[in-house]
């Protein structure tokens, strides 16, 4: 669906993105993950044909965006980081305007609008002024405008930005429901959103793709054999002493220890949970929880974006 080769975009002397290579197949839901200023929005604007690349080749559905941006735009629905809404219009009129602008025949406009409203649960807001909508509904109408012309590719830049937790869950399930009908590329710096919504991740840092793959693939690449997390009643020292007797269990790390409960992490090879659990219980340790502590997305992300020139903004990760 999308082929990107050597994509570079300069703003003056500054390279916002540099030599990006990736491809996306039809029907995939791809998460574009990176810190603020990493180059996510610039990449999405180039893919959305809003900006032209300084160098490189991007094809969408086999069409080069530099040669025939018009044709590419027909196949794309783009939601920028701020939904492009006209406050003085009603939702229905606005969606009809966008549909016609993007080539939906006049006779099919009403049906296309109704379909977009149904998919985004905005049908009851059809006759309301956009100015009167809540932030959550504005974001939904933003998604509706992106899919009203039934594009093959949906590009959503930070679709959950500024939403409250309930609205985030609703938006997430809405995006999941769109899976199959569209290829979806969404960006975010919210890790949970990416991990729960996307099939595959592209991690961007300082304008370069630093990793790509499924969460498991990234975990395997970054985390090696993984870890086992254990929660026990009693002291951490006692649990560590017992765990050391189990063959294959490596370095132990105390994650927390308070109120008589200790949480530990053990470097472990293949899944040693049954043996470790058995050893702890047989030696009289009350086991409260044992779990795979394989590298989670957050730690993968932190490792990938670890850079001496980059400081993580507070609140940038959730």
């Amino acid at each position, binding site marked *: 669906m999308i082929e990107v080769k050597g994509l570079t975009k300069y703003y003056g002397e500054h390279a916002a993105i540099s030599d990006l290579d990736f491809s996306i197949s039809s029907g995939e839901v791809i998460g574009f993950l990176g810190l603020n200023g990493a180059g996510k929005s610039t990449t999405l604007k180039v893919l959305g044909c809003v*900006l032209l690349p*300084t160098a490189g080749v991007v094809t969408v559905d086999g069409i080069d965006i530099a040669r025939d941006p018009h044709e590419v735009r027909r196949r794309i629905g783009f939601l*920028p980081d*701020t939904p*492009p809404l006209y406050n003085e219009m009603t939702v229905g009129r606005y969606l009809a305007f966008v549909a016609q602008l993007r080539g939906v025949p006049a006779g099919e406009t009403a049906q296309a609008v109704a379909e977009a409203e149904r998919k985004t649960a905005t049908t009851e807001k059809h006759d309301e002024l956009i100015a009167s909508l809540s932030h959550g509904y504005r974001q939904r109408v933003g998604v509706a405008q992106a899919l009203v012309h039934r594009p093959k590719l949906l590009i959503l830049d930070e679709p959950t930005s500024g939403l409250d937790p309930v609205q985030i869950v609703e938006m997430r399930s809405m995006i999941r429901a769109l899976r199959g009908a569209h290829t979806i590329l969404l960006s975010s710096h919210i890790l949970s959103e990416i991990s729960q919504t996307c099939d595959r991740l592209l991690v961007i840092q300082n304008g370069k793709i630093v990793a790509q793959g499924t969460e498991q693939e990234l975990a395997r690449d970054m985390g090696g054999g993984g870890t086992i997390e254990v929660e026990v009643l009693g002291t951490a020292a006692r649990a560590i002493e017992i765990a050391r007797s189990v063959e294959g269990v490596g370095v132990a790390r105390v994650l927390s220890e308070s109120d008589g409960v200790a949480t530990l992490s053990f470097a472990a090879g293949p899944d040693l949970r049954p043996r470790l659990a058995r050893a702890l219980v047989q030696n009289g340790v009350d086991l409260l929880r044992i779990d795979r502590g394989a590298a989670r997305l957050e730690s993968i992300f932190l490792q990938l974006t670890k850079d001496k020139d980059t400081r993580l903004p507070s609140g940038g990760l959730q």
Partner: protein
Amino acid sequence: MRSTLLIARRELGAYLRSMTGYVIAALVLAIDGVFFQAFVMSGADKLSSQVLSGFFEIAGGVTMVSSVFISMRLLAEERQTGTLVLLTSSPVRDSEIVVGKFLSALVFMAMITVATVYIPALIFVNGKVSFGHMAAGYVGLLLLGSASLAVGTLGSALARTQVLAAIFSGCMMAALVVCWMLGRVTERPFSDVFATIALWQKHFPPFQAGQIHLRDVFFYLALTYLGLFAATRVMEARRWR
């Protein structure tokens, strides 16, 4: 063409649904009326044609100034509020966006201009002026408005905010108006060039007097084309940034 008309219709709707549109229309009509009463109807007795000519002179000045405020929102406001990306990510050419925006402003200005027709109508009823004089004056106002709005559209394409757009457009308009002064203090051929490109001094008075010259019509249409062409180029250049 379909996209141009869609954009023009939406934009015109935005003028008619916004307070700014009505404030501009009310101010234009009020200033036209007050200035007409204060500067044209006062003083010694005049011929009806002189009174009508005086009205068009005032209306021409007000049209130029109001075009700055009518056009300032066209592209700058969309950029300011982030809605321009809706148009630039749609299968619409930059020229269609620019022309659609311009057309909406032109229609809005034409609506205001038509609303001033009561003044010439009063002169027509109470005095002795030809219908042709009135028609020529209004054709001139529309052409002057069209050229001024095209310059304003360029200013709006260049600016990031509406205030900056008004400043850019105002400066370009002022430069075009005062060109005739440069024509007086420079040698030929520069004096001829400055006199020719002056927005007002050489090209509008014939319309005021009820005459339509092809060269004046061509000048205003050429300026309109140039303004819109430059605005389109600015839009295209912004995709490269």
